[in-house]
Every structure is written in structure tokens, then in C-alpha cells.
């Protein structure tokens, strides 16, 4: 049995167009040992035009992952260390006086790059966070009276340290919602850590990474992703998952109803669909299946569910809610 003729053709195009990702993955793996799932999520966010909130304790190579990713993808990279004394102008740029022509000229800030690593975003005050998140949403910034479009692709990877909250400004829920995914960077496996240690001790230098992506590869991939077929059954499945975070009792999860204070917003449905399509693209498929949805459900939903007092008292995490929902919502 064959899939629909249009999808078969699209599938072939996707197979050809997604090769660059395999090449990039191979390059990244030369420098980054393990963390395959994190790297895949970064690919998905790039393809789906989303942003990522990375959370992990210090020393897990978060910065190295993003820097290596940008190098392999041939993208301009900027790392911004957020501090409490930062101003929005430090991010977006400012008007600088030129004594030669006696005029003010806009000077673009570090935000003008393809891949931005916003390190420890929760260390900056709310106005700086807002400036960044507005830029993420609008894909443009205004300096003085001039508005500048940010480069395309434009992706922000913001990091948060989950264990250190002193002197930090927690991101408001409305702003966290703008991140397509929240990716938890976990410790490497035992064997991986052994390899990391051996590699670092042997050479003392970081392996070189080649840029393997050509200009236009990402744009072409995004166009193909737009054409990926989404069956109404899968669409309903996505909405079911999101609605289940708001009304768990409707899906036989009455025990979660008291635990969840607020469920995911409609933005979650949109991002679930976009991310699932990007995931299908990574699988060289021209249609999405519930597997694609399940694969990115944790990353897309975990930061959009606000647990209630009871859940916090019982140390129940939002990942537990997502797991329950995935196990109870019927797969088409």
C-alpha cells in the first residue's frame, strides 16, 4: 500500500532536503558527547521558528551545545550574559552620537544574530526580559525612531539555573509561554561522562566543527514543513492533550483536576502542531503521526502547566501531569 501520491512526492523531497540536518548532527556530535535529544529539540525549534528555554545545572555544556549548533548550521551566534544591572539598550542597541556628522545613529545590539544564547535570563530585571521576549515575538526591534527586522532565522535559547534563585527575577508565566519548548538538560550517562573526560584530558582543546549547512537550506526545509500533512485525527489528538491539561476530569483524570491550577494556553496547541511537523521532518516523513506529538509533548507542555498548591506540597512536577495525560488520552 502506498501513501497519497502528493505525500509520496513530498516525502521524497523531504528526504533530500533533510540531509543537511544529518550532516549537522554528525558535526555537532564530534564536539558534544551525548545530549542527542537536546540537540534534536534545538533542530526542531529552528525548523519550527520557535525559541527554547534550556534548564539545567551549571556545567552541562549548555553554552557549548548552542555555540556548536550555530557553527555547524553556519549561523551567526551571540551569547548574552544577563545581569541585574542590564538595560534593554544593552540588548537591542542604542542611538550613538557621531561627532563627524553631528547626528545620532542607531547601533544594533547583540540581539542582531541568528542564534542568541541568553545565558541566565532570570538574572536580568523584568524590563530587559520583556525587551528580549518582545523581540522574540515580533522578530524586530526599534532603536530610536527606526525599526529593524531581526535576521532570519532568529532563534533564542535562554538558559535558567534551576537550583539557584537568589538575586534572580523569575520569568512571568505569560513570558515563559512564548518559548516553544522548555528543554531539561540532564547529566550525561556514565559512559558519556567517561568519554567527555577522556576527550577533554587527551587534547585539551575542543574538536573543530565545520559549517555544513548552506544558505537557503533552512528556508527550504521550513517551506517543506509547511506542506507536511496533518490528519484531522492528529489535530484532534493535539487539542485533546492540551484540553486535558485544563479539564483533566473530562479525560478520566479527576485526580489531576485539583493539582493543576492553570492548564496550557491555545499557544500550546499551535506549538505542539508546529513542533510535531518539524519532528516528522526530522524523521523524513511527509505526514505527522501521534508519535511525533508524543515525542515533543513534554517539552511543549511542561512550562505551560501551572501546578496548584497541592501538587507543590506533594512535590509533583509538571512532567508527571504530562505523563499521566499521555497515558490516558486515547491515541487515534
Amino acid at each position: 500500500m502506498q501513501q497519497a501520491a502528493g505525500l509520496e512526492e513530498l516525502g521524497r523531497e523531504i528526504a533530500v532536503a533533510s540531509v543537511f540536518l544529518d550532516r549537522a548532527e554528525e558535526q555537532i556530535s564530534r564536539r558534544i558527547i551525548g545530549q542527542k535529544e537536546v540537540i534534536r529539540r534545538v533542530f526542531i525549534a529552528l525548523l519550527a521558528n520557535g525559541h527554547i528555554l534550556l534548564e539545567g545545572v551549571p556545567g552541562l555544556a549548555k553554552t557549548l551545545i548552542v555555540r556548536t549548533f550555530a557553527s555547524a548550521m553556519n549561523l551567526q551566534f551571540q551569547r548574552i550574559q544577563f545581569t541585574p544591572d542590564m538595560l534593554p539598550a544593552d540588548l537591542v542597541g542604542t542611538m550613538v552620537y557621531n561627532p563627524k556628522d553631528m547626528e545620532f545613529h542607531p547601533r544594533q545590539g547583540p540581539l542582531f544574530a541568528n542564534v542568541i544564547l541568553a545565558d541566565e535570563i532570570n538574572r536580568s530585571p523584568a524590563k530587559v526580559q520583556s525587551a528580549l521576549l518582545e523581540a522574540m515575538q515580533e522578530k524586530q526591534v526599534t532603536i530610536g525612531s527606526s525599526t529593524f527586522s531581526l535576521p532570519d532565522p532568529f532563534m533564542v535559547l535562554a538558559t535558567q539555573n534551576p537550583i539557584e534563585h537568589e538575586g534572580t527575577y523569575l520569568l512571568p508565566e505569560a513570558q515563559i509561554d512564548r518559548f516553544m519548548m522548555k528543554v531539561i538538560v540532564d547529566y550525561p550517562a556514565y559512559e558519556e561522562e567517561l568519554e567527555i573526560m577522556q576527550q577533554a584530558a587527551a587534547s585539551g582543546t575542543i574538536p573543530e566543527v565545520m559549517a555544513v549547512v548552506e544558505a537557503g537550506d533552512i528556508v527550504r526545509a521550513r517551506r517543506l514543513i509547511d506542506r507536511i500533512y496533518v490528519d484531522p485525527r492528529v489535530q484532534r489528538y493535539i487539542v485533546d492533550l492540551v484540553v486535558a491539561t485544563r479539564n483533566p476530569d473530562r479525560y478520566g483524570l479527576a485526580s489531576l483536576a485539583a493539582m493543576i491550577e492553570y492548564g496550557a494556553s491555545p499557544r500550546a496547541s499551535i506549538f505542539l502542531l508546529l513542533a510535531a511537523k518539524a519532528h516528522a521532518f526530522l524523521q523524513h516523513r511527509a505526514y505527522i503521526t501521534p508519535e511525533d506529538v508524543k515525542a515533543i509533548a513534554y517539552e511543549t507542555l511542561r512550562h505551560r502547566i501551572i501546578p496548584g498548591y497541592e501538587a507543590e506540597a506533594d512535590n509533583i512536577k509538571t512532567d508527571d501531569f504530562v505523563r499521566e495525560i499521555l497515558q490516558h488520552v486515547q491515541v487515534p
Partner: protein
Amino acid sequence: MILIRAISLLMAMLLMLPFPACAKPGEGVPAVRVSAAPDSVYAGERVICMIRVRHPEGLLAALELPDSSALAPFVLVGRNRSSSKPSPGFAEDRFELELAVFGSGRQNLPEFAIMFRDSEGHRTGRTHHRPEASVYVKTLTPSGMNELRPFKPPIKPEFPFLLLMPFLLAAFVLAGAVLLALFLVKRKVRLFAETVDPAQVAHRKLRKLGSRLSGGLAPVECYDQLSGIMREYLERHYHIRALEAVTQEIERDLRKLGVSSFDAIMTLLKQSDLVKFADSRPSVDESLKSIRQAEDLIGSGRDGGG
């Protein structure tokens, strides 16, 4: 006046009639009646002695008892007095004596005297009485006992629990029997459910699906149901979570189990996925062929698995 006096005298005489002849009633002569209850007590218990004195109106009656040593074997515990006018021209005084009784055998009530005075307090007469009534004293204590027995609180009749015991036991036995029956039925149902071959169930559903397909069911719908039947079979036969799992999760589980018909099962599930998610439009023949493949798979899977 004479007539009124005559009538009142007649009435007084009529009223005197039921009185025992402790003292003979007559004009101007009071009538005295003595009674005691109970008439049989244990030593130390108490009796109530009631002395009723009926006399013409205008006189006052007073009871005179001998001193305590003369009262033996009775001890006066309490006394009470009340008056009434049972009929015109007559009055009745009632003296209620509470007496503790000691000794043993039949004991006559103590003697007493009634003193009468007129309304001005002048003594008009005195009558001495020796009651005929007596009390029988049963002795369960030494005869020398002369202490008062305390009043026993009235004993309430006990609820006949023993009579209820057979009913209670019957209720317990019945409840136990019902619970046992429920347990056995539940066990039987569970054993029956376990013994029902999932392959048989799947075969029956596939035959039904085939006939519905021949009856005009859309192939897309057919594959939807086929996928459901296969998942249900896999869940029950191989004891894996298949109904809420995606194809890739089933693939992982079956691979771990080393199922012999792994490739054929996955081909069938992936075909169903193509129809469900990739807009594939199979023909009726292809659908029938898939149903037959499913039947063969289920037949071949009887030996292995769960």
C-alpha cells in the same frame, strides 16, 4: 335545719360503710382504717402504713405514736400527712408512715392513738387503736440485724438479647453467604475473562469487519477499526500497553518480547497508520487482504506471547 343535718348524717353513714370495722362508724364517731403494703418483706425493708381517719367536718385529727422502743420491731423512717373532704360535712385525714421492719415472722402493726380537737383547739376525744393488719418478715440475715436496708433501685426489665441471638446469627450467616457468593461470581467472571482466548475475540471481530466491508463500509473506516482490533489483541495476548500507545511504542515492546510475527504485525500497523494519518486511500480488495493478513497473524500468534 334539722332536715339538712339528718341528710348529712345519712350520707356520712353511707360513706362509712366500706370501711373495715377497726372502729365502728357512727354519728360523731370517727372511722379509722389501717392498711400496710407490702404485706411481706425481708428484714430491714420498709413498708408503708396508711392510716385513714374519717370524721365530721370541724374536727382536727392528730396521730399519736408510742415512743421508738415501743414501736419495735418497727422503726419510724418517715411520716406524711394529708387531708381531703370526700363528702359534705365530712373530712378525711391520711397519715402515711414509712416503717422499717425487723425481726422475723408475722409482725402486727404498732398501736397508735388518734386525738381529736375542735376548731378552737379544744380536745374533744381520743381513740386508741390496735390494728389488725400485719406484715410478714422474711429473714435472710441474722435475726439480730437492725440496720436499715437501703432502697433498691427499681430493676428495669432487661432487653431479651438472647432471644435475638438466633436472628443476629442468621443475619451474619446470610451476609457471609452473600459475600462468599459475590466473591465466587467475581472470581468466576475473572477466570472466564482470562480463559477467553483474545485470538477468538479478534477473529470474531475481524469476520464481522470483513462482512461490514463487503456491505459497503469505507476502507478508511475499515483500517481504523482493523488497527483497533489488532491493538486490543496485542494488549491482551502479549500483555503490553497497546491501546494508548503509538505504533513506535508497540514496536519497541514487541521487539523486546521477540515476537515471531513481529515484521508482519508492524507492516499491518504501519499500513493502518498510512491510512489514518497519511491520507492513503486503499481499495476494498486491499482492505480485505489486510483483514486476511490480520486473521493469519492472529492464528499464528496462538502459540507464543502471553
